[in-house]
């Protein structure tokens, strides 16, 4: 699966990216984590508050740091 973390690079966004990596590790599967910091892309995706997280192109969370457990639950679907 493709996990995108959106954020300009503030502390919250970095925490979120770390959580995404942790979740991937815990899941034991092969998933790709990508950090997106381009504002124009965020705008086109409809993101208005950061950090945000998308799974396979679908934005699932925005505006708060999500724990690795929640991301893991999302990956396992």
């Amino acid at each position, binding site marked *: 699966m493709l996990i995108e973390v959106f954020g*300009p690079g503030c502390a919250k966004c970095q925490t979120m990216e770390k959580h995404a990596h942790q979740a991937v590790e815990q899941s034991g599967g092969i998933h790709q984590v990508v950090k997106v910091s381009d504002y124009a892309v965020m705008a086109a995706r409809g993101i208005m508050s950061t950090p945000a997280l998308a799974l396979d192109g679908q934005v699932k969370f925005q505006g708060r740091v999500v724990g690795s457990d929640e991301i893991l639950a999302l990956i396992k679907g």
Partner: protein
Amino acid sequence: MALPIWILLYAVSHPASEWIAFHLFRLTPKTHLGEAVAFFFFDVPKVLLLLTLVVFIVTFLQTFVSPTKVRDALSKRRAGLGNALASLFGIMTPFCSCSAVPLFIGFLRAGVPLGVTFSFLVAAPMINEVALGMLFAMFGWKIALIYAGTGVAIAFISGLLLGRLKMERHLEDWVQDALKAPSLGEIEEERPTLSNRLSLALQGVKDIVGKVWPYILAGISVGALIHGFVPEAFMAGLLGKEHWYSVPLAVLVGIPLYSNAAGVMPIVEALLGKGAALGSTLAFMMAVIGLSLPETIILRRVMRPRLIATFVGVVALGILLVGYLFNAIL
């Protein structure tokens, strides 16, 4: 369950602070050092306890508002009503300065006029919901209402004014392109349950109190020094209402001071206690919270220098007017 513990801690904090200052440290009451130390030990638990409660309530309420909902309510609104709504929404919307750019573009893309967007961008940081709650808890509803009311007025008028100036062409080129770019999909809103909301509120307390306590200790230390050592005549002279320069001075000192909303409260408390005029103190607080350097730098990414200068200028002017107004009528 946590509430009785909170009440008990709050009740013993005053006697405990006097005991620490005057018995444990053997300082004499009514001396500079004694009063400063007592202020410090009284304020640390008081401010932290109030902050915990205020953040919990505010974060819980904020789970009901989101930038997306505000955007939908504001899109296609005309100037005037749109500015008024944007200013009011600005009070409660969760807002962090690193979200300023995506929010700004998101609003404009959805057809929110530039002036209305500005009203929101002024109101959101200036009327800080935690500051509002802290003012209410520490100084009563009148000062809290004055703060919120004048903040809304400044946001309303600056947005109206900036909208009239037709500054759209002063947005950076990449923003103009991003506004025209096709959408790559809409987002479904999360639907939290009550227990989700409560745990988000608890998380908010952990995050915010965990992050701002150094600012609070710094603020209380400054407040304690003012309380213990600065003579009343000096402060009343510098920030008293009879001097024309007291308000601009307060704003000039406040802008570069980047502090957290909660960190300013003890300073406000000490300033008011020492006879500084309410208008000057309010202006100082708004300059610290509402006009922050980091946010200005972030917004520079989307706005050309002319627009950003106009933005800061209009808001600073609004704060000055509020300061003079309250010094004149109170």
